[in-house]
């Protein structure tokens, strides 16, 4: 079963995404900021990370720095969920595999996106 890590400080958004993905049979782990996200990524070794860019404690950019340095996790694909303010066109987050999706995202679009990277088992 594929494992997805959601890193976002908005608990309601996390709740919606988690519920949608779990119903589809994905295993979901969550983190409230970049620091927790890194720890979870190392511990859980997820197959995909859904990342918010603007977060407290450690934002998406700082997360990317640490993430890219750690070769045990740096190959994990990242979906960057951005609201308009953190538009990736201004300052791209330098992940190896990355896709930008702007918020809000409808449940079925989220699933389409996730399925692109993961095959349900």
């Amino acid at each position, binding site marked *: 079963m594929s494992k997805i890590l959601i890193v976002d400080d*908005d608990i*309601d*958004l996390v709740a*919606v*995404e988690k*519920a*949608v993905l779990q*119903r589809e049979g994905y295993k979901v782990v969550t983190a409230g900021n970049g620091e927790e996200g890194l720890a979870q990524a190392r511990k859980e070794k997820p197959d995909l990370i859904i990342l918010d860019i*603007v977060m407290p404690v450690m934002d998406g950019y700082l997360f990317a720095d640490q993430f890219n340095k750690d070769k045990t996790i740096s190959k994990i694909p990242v979906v960057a969920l951005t*609201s*308009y*303010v953190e538009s990736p*066109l*201004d300052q791209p987050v330098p992940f190896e595999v990355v896709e930008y999706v702007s*918020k*809000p*995202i*409808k*449940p*079925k679009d989220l699933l389409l996106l996730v399925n692109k990277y993961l095959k349900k088992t």
Partner: protein
Amino acid sequence: MTNKEPVAGYMPELKALKARLNVFVRMRWLVVLGIIGVALSARYLFNISFSTLPVFIICFFLLAYNLWMYLWNRRLSKDDTEIVIKRAQASGYIQVLLDLGILTVLLHFTGGITNPFIFVYVIHTTAASILLTKRRAYELTTIAVAMAALLAFLEYSGVIGHVNLVGFLPVTLYRQLNFVWSVIITLAVLTYTSTYITTAVAGELRLQHLKMDLLRDQLLKEDELELQSISAEVTRLKDERTSFIRLLNVVTHDLQAPLVAVQSCISYVLDGYAGEVVEEQKDWLQRGSRRIDGLLLLITDLLDIPRIELGQLKQEMAELSLNEVIANSLAGLDILAEKKGLKFLVELPEKSPLIIGSSRRLQQVVTNLTNNAINYTKEGEIKIRLFEKGDEIKVEVIDTGIGIPPKDLPRLFDEFYRGSNVESKGSGLGLSIARRIIGAHGGKIWAESPNPETGLGSKFVFTIPNKQNK
């Protein structure tokens, strides 16, 4: 500085002083030529017999001394400190003193008191009066008269020899006390009178000069103060604007985040993840969802303002093919227009103009203008034209729609301004954002209604500076 009293020793400007010292040097070159000329013509033209050797020796000394002064003045020109004025004045004093000495020696070898050139002392004292302070001028005048008198009386009493100008005047003239006294007194009267007149005139000139300087300083200072207060005001307004725009950025972002969450929650329910939704529930939820979509659109537009104003647009600028930008902007809009039964025409030049700009932002402008044209046109056609004209590139979006009432035209590009003949649609920020985007590209945007070419609908035009002409 403004309360500076006119001082006795005030010298107008270093520049004037330097110019005068240079006049001294130039005069001296001529004087050497003059002395040689006079000596030779006295000797050979008028057959006055005296030894010319000492005259030439003195001329040689004068040349060497003048060369030194010439170089000294040049060095002085490169220095602009306060102390230079004092040094230049001291130099002027020493130069006059030396010139007086040289003249006295020259006179001694050319007939002493009987040489009519004895009155040349007046030139020296006049020069001193122009160049130096009153006190120094009188000092040098007294020295000049004293030197002349000393020369005359030393020769008269036989302490030093006397060179006779044989063939010019009676050879015993220098021993006639009446003659000696009359020459010395005439010389004294001439020099002191000249010094008196010259220092008075020079003093008056200096005073005027000083007043002018003070006035100029005062005016400059007033100008400067005014300029300072204006630039402080400009800075303050700029700061205020920047902080307002930052606030706008933060506020809109904070408004956006919860709306995104709300919209996601509603979608979750609407899409049936929280159990089956009956038709009536769906309707109500969709009503709410549409309003949130509208609000998110407004926030997106509001966020555009700080992004453009804070210069983020400039970072995106690159060399672009404008044809490509327009083609991208119109993707999907042709279908929208044809659905409404409108003709959709695009006229692009064969060779695309190259510009420096933000592709994303320019597309936003063209899309916005074309969208508006389609929205406000019931029948007829929509035409998008791109062409080069002089040093700019023009993009026109032309419709045959309802047009814009004349009273609305001037305020069309203001924030939240809506035409009086249209229903509210969109955020009301589209055109004001378009104005900011085009402004950031160094271009202009305006609307004409009715379109002067057809007398119908309206024409929106924007210009972008032509890169190739720069």
